[in-house]
């Protein structure tokens, strides 16, 4: 485990294989909520928090429950249930103790359970940082770091997109491409520019 490894994960998750623009995870929320900047920011912070926490929780489940008992084939079921339970718990805690915060991003929390980005990162972590049922050195830290970076990549794409779409509201476009089609074509151009980071080498 060294700094270079962390740097490579950062560049790869935020820019080169951006969770939305290149891996297409969390696309539904990306298209649906990116119409204005404020909700986009609230959604991104909720996703960042949930992805980071669920990366840690699913790593522990995978390492200490599924692998020792030879249950790795239950990965999909156990991960989605753990994520759903965790999101529910967070929602209840926030509603009880932080009503102001709940008003900002509480309504987005139930949506996050079925956000493919969260489950995607959990599955990706268990694919990348475990080899033949054994964790690689420093895999716990790497998993959490990858969760944070994917969350940052999500927030970056979401903010850029919402800023562009706020401007697009005022432009005159053909009726049939208004809203979704135009959003996808915009995302395509953004994705093209993000691919420019592909040549980065360390």
């Amino acid at each position, binding site marked *: 485990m060294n700094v270079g490894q962390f740097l490579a994960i950062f560049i790869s998750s935020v820019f080169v294989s951006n969770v939305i*623009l*290149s*891996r*297409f*995870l*969390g*696309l*539904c929320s990306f*298209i649906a909520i990116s119409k204005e900047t404020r909700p986009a920011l609230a959604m991104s912070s909720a996703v960042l928090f949930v992805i980071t926490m669920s990366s840690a929780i699913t790593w522990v489940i995978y390492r200490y429950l599924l692998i020792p008992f030879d249950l790795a*084939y*239950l*990965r*999909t*079921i156990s991960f*989605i*249930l753990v994520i*759903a339970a965790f999101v529910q718990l967070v929602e209840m805690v926030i509603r009880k103790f932080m009503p102001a915060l709940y008003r900002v991003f509480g309504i987005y929390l139930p949506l996050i*359970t*079925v*956000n*493919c980005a969260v*489950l*995607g990162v959990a*599955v*990706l972590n268990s*694919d990348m940082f475990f080899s033949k049922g054994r964790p690689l050195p420093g895999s716990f830290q790497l998993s959490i770091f990858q969760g944070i970076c994917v969350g940052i990549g999500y927030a970056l794409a979401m903010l850029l997109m919402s800023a562009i779409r706020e401007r697009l509201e005022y432009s005159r476009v*053909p*009726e*049939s*491409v208004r809203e*979704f*089609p*135009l*959003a*996808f*074509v915009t*995302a*395509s*151009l953004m*994705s*093209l520019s993000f*691919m420019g980071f592909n040549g980065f080498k360390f």
Partner: protein
Amino acid sequence: MKLPAEFLKGIIRQNPIFVLALGLCPVLAVSTSVSNALGMGAAATFVLVGSNCIISLIKNVVPDKIRIPCFIVVIATFVTIAELVMRAYSPALNRALGIYVPLIVVNCMVLGRAEAFASRRPFLGSLADGLGMGAGFTLGLALISSIRELLGAGELLGYTLFPGFKPALMMALPPGALLVIGMMLGFFNLLKGRKE
């Protein structure tokens, strides 16, 4: 209730990809080649049909408050079956589809059909709905992937169609997927506008 109608509506009038815009993540990610797309379509259809059938059978037993977690467990079971079968019988396809097979669990299309249709309809109707939605999903995937494979690699199912045609690599990369789906959605909107 007419079973053929339940089946046919998923193919064009309520096509999950182009009309309902559901389940787009795997559509964009695996549509790089037609063979990948057909594999994904088969897996998603299997999960849709299986979960629709089971959910319509257990809908009266499941308490209303915890129905979503119950549905997710049913769906995840079928996804695990699909994943294990795929890994056993066609490892190459499994490698090509990668993490997008387990991600069928969180595909909004499957959960959406369970919640909107199977949880309040009888068994046979849900079966027909699952088959129709699966067929519509597979057809849409095949359409997008053939456009992308043709323009991005100059091939269709691995065969070169136009010798001497210089493929545009961009179409095989992520931006191409977003561009094609944007254009297709716009085209379908245009058709809908004409009809009205």
